[in-house]
């Protein structure tokens, strides 16, 4: 056996004697505790971040959905309005809301014209600036906004009796409200408001009412 062999043999003996040596279990315990602390902190931060991200994504999705609903013209009813005596600057394809059966002899053009409805007053107050403007609805788990409408305002001074008709949802400038006698502030004349137009069987716009949305809490 030469010297190299003896050295390797000696080292091999040392290696075999020590091969079972390991760090005491307390080292693992300390490291594991440290690891858990670090990751529990990170987990909390991660949870916050994830929660905020999910909330933002959900908000973005609902807003995109809401915008899509407002901007996309629904294609369901394609009713061609006949030229009406009172010209309405309708800006969106009207949507058929309901079939209306109008009682004979109520108001001008067979349409009730009462403005004592508190819902109608709330719309007027908003347009005239007497109250805070309606805030954009933030999509969340809140209930859907409640629709508030004014009474119908006649668009024809003299109109044949109305038996059946259709109500179409349209978007018009706020100035339309002024044309039926509702007060509108100057700076709001170009605002867009939704309205329901009552169209008679003959295709003429008989009356209009204005629509707003109120969020119930």
């Amino acid at each position, binding site marked *: *056996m030469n*010297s*190299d*062999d*003896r*050295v*390797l*043999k*000696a*080292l091999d*003996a*040392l*290696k075999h*004697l*020590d*091969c079972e*040596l*390991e*760090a*005491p279990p307390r*080292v*693992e315990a*300390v*490291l*594991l505790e*440290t*690891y*858990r602390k*670090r*990751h529990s902190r*990170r*987990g909390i931060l991660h949870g916050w971040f994830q929660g905020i991200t999910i909330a933002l994504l959900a908000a973005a999705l609902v807003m995109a959905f809401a915008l899509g609903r407002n901007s996309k013209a629904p294609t369901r009813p394609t009713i061609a309005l006949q030229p009406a005596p009172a010209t309405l600057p309708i800006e969106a394809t009207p949507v058929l809301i309901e079939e209306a059966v109008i009682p004979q002899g109520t108001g001008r053009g067979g349409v009730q014209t009462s403005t004592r409805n508190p819902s109608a007053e709330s719309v007027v107050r908003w347009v005239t600036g007497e109250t805070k403007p309606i805030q954009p609805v933030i999509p969340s788990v809140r209930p859907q906004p409640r629709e508030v409408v004014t009474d119908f305002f006649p668009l024809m001074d003299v109109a044949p009796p109305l038996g059946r008709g259709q109500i179409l949802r349209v978007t018009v400038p706020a100035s339309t409200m002024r044309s039926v006698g509702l007060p509108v502030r100057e700076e709001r004349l170009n605002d867009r408001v939704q309205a329901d137009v009552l169209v008679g069987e003959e295709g003429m716009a008989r009356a209009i009412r204005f629509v707003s949305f109120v969020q119930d809490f």
Partner: protein
Amino acid sequence: MAFLEQHTDEYLLARLKGGDETAFTLLYRRRQGAIYRFILHMTGDLVVAEDVTQEVFLALLSGQAKYDESRGSLSGFLFGVARNKLLRRFGAQREVPVEEYAVDDDLLEDLLRRETVERVRRAVLSLPQVYREAVVLCDLEESSYEDAALALDCPVGTVRSRLNRGRAMLAQKLQPMAAVGVALGGK
């Protein structure tokens, strides 16, 4: 756990960074023994071996020690972290204290063998640091030359030359032991 045992160190490291405690436990148990023994053979000090082993893995957990897979194995990297911590602690020229290990076996043959092995241990501990590192890593821990080069931050050729030189120095130190070669199994 059995599923993870088949995976590489690098895979376990990625898992433990993601919060997988099982991966951490497996990786630690897989590598702690070699790191502990490396430090022990370098210092001959059980307390230092325990402390530095803990420091090495803490550095890995905290991200203080950043492992780059492209530079070599995690094993070599951990040896390098341990070496750096030893150098920081004691400096390169530290006089290594040589301590005896308790022997709890009464058998004469085993005593003789252990005594002989302890002389080998002391001989290793008395080597200059650069040669000791190479001998401990390559001969006692069976690291590849590449891993040793990563740990020692030097080329593979340097590892080889240091290893040869270290063995030669050990041969000189152990010459009187030739007479007790029987204890080491030599004929």
